[in-house]
């Protein structure tokens, strides 16, 4: 699906410039300037191959899955299940039975909170999160606490945006029932030491959910190597469709968990006196699934695999280094999130210009960045800021994009008379 890559720069392994034209949305002007899209952490763009896979599915093969003998239904089922296989391979799941389609990271986390945790939770039980979580990895646990009387324990972060491991090591020993933590922070870009956290948690018998929404698009992820219990991510952050996401979970957990939602497809047999649930992963996929979303996500995985996640990671880390360097040179800038291990994005503030104003001014020059709390208010609280501006990268970005960003910041300073 990915075009053959030309080698124009020195390191052939990180030159992804040929990919850019795969993304039709990038070929447009915004406010008279060519679009610079630096908001992939909120949602990434789709290559033509993904857009086409979805459209072609509807032009030729659509029908409901799993329950039909006719040709279209068979084709739809095959395509849907092939997408699952592609995704299982992409994250190196032991088996396709461990790969549950959800509507996104948010639903994946809610599913774990409600089906895995809720039944066994008692008043006073503890759930361990960190200060840098996205709201989607906070609010489901708050709802669970309200429902059960359990309590949240929060691993602090430091000024760089790194986890306070000393405190973590104490907290993980205090009898927590689950550790639910980001793999990569969406507000700060911090890459958490997942391997180490998981090892620690295992020593104390604590199951671990990783929120991988910001990791999967930017680096190779291997759930077996990580050895986590649950791993959640979203299609739309990895060049796939909205409305589709994945919960990876160890088979032994899924076997024991009650279903999350009830409906068609997740049962083998329904009687009013009682119901037999379907096999994995179907027990957790109630109702008609997001068939075209799954197929689109399968196409996205094939696209990313075609380029290679190693190369994407190398490209982005080189570009992030460049971006951080260029931003640092802007007078009056304050970088938020300066962890030693970082991926794909940089938050910042400029003078006392409110991020929201900054967003408008750079957008006016065709540069799309996100501004605000990034659904991570506790991070904003920690840094004592109402929000930040955040420039986030994907495989299709290049140095020119970074230069355009920096130039647009200069304009902001001008408008605000600094």
């Amino acid at each position, binding site marked *: 699906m990915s075009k053959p890559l030309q080698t124009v720069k020195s390191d052939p392994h990180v030159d992804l410039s040929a990919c850019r034209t795969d993304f039709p949305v990038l070929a447009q002007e915004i406010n008279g*300037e060519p679009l610079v899209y630096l908001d992939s952490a909120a949602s990434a763009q789709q290559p033509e191959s993904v857009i086409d896979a979805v459209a072609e599915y509807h032009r030729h093969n659509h029908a409901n899955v799993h329950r039909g003998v006719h040709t279209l239904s068979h084709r739809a089922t095959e395509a849907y299940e092939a997408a699952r296989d592609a995704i299982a391979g992409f994250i190196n799941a032991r088996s396709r039975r461990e790969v549950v389609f959800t509507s996104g990271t948010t639903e994946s986390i809610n599913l774990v909170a409600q089906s895995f945790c809720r039944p066994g939770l008692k008043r006073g039980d503890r759930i361990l999160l960190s200060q840098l979580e996205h709201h989607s990895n906070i609010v489901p646990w708050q709802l669970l606490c309200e429902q059960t009387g359990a309590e949240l324990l929060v691993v602090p972060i430091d000024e760089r945006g790194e986890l306070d491991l000393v405190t973590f090591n104490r907290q993980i020993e205090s009898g927590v029932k689950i550790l639910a933590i980001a793999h990569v922070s969406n507000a700060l870009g911090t890459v958490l030491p997942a391997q180490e956290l998981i090892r620690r948690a295992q020593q104390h018998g604590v199951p671990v959910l990783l929120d991988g929404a910001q990791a999967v698009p930017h680096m190779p992820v291997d759930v077996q190597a990580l050895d986590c219990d649950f791993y959640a991510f979203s299609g739309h952050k990895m060049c796939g469709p909205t409305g589709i996401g994945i919960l990876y979970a160890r088979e032994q957990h899924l076997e024991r968990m009650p279903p999350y939602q009830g409906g068609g497809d997740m049962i083998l047999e329904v009687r009013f006196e009682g119901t037999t649930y379907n096999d994995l992963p179907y027990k957790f996929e109630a109702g008609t699934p997001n068939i075209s979303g799954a197929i689109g996500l399968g196409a996205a995985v094939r696209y990313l695999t075609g380029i290679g996640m190693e190369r994407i990671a190398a490209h982005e880390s080189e570009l992030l280094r460049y971006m951080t360097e260029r931003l640092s040179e802007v007078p009056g800038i304050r970088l938020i999130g300066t962890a030693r291990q970082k991926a794909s994005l940089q938050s910042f503030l400029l003078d006392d210009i409110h*991020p*929201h104003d900054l*967003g408008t001014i750079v957008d*006016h020059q065709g540069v799309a960045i996100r501004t*605000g709390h990034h659904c991570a208010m506790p991070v904003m609280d920690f840094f004592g800021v*109402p929000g930040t501006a955040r420039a986030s990268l994907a495989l299709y970005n290049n140095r020119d994009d970074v*230069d355009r960003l920096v*130039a647009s910041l*200069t304009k902001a300073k001008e408008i605000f008379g600094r």
Partner: protein
Amino acid sequence: MNRAMSDLSTGELRDLYRELILDHARSPRHFGKLPALTHSAEGLNPLCGDKLKLYLQIDDDDRISDAAFEGSGCAISVASASLMTDAIIGMRTGEALDFAKALIGAVTGRISSEDLGEDSQIELGKLQALQGVREFPSRVKCATLAWHAMNSAIRQEQRPASTE
């Protein structure tokens, strides 16, 4: 930097960030608490995290005898709150509500300020400065936040006013 920025449309930006707006954003009037408040409301803009508390002192005569606000927000929302408090002190609540309606209409583009003059006798005055927002639809909510909060405060609503 390998390409020059065009200055084509800076005009619109200058129109949004007029001197008056920047001035009120930098030095907001009536910023702080109100010791003898009778009404208050919170305004939240989930879009960008703008957050303000509006305090009103409404006398028995139904007149807004004092107004103040606290909170944090972008230049547009702070300037709007500052200009608003300046403007409504001395108005009767009914007048203030009409004024809010007119302002919101004007910045959303539903009412033009000329129409307004003739129809309703409401003069936006300085607040015309907020009309630059019209060209920036994603910022309309910032400009109207304080006004929604005023609405809630006068109507004594419990929930934070939100622009969603």
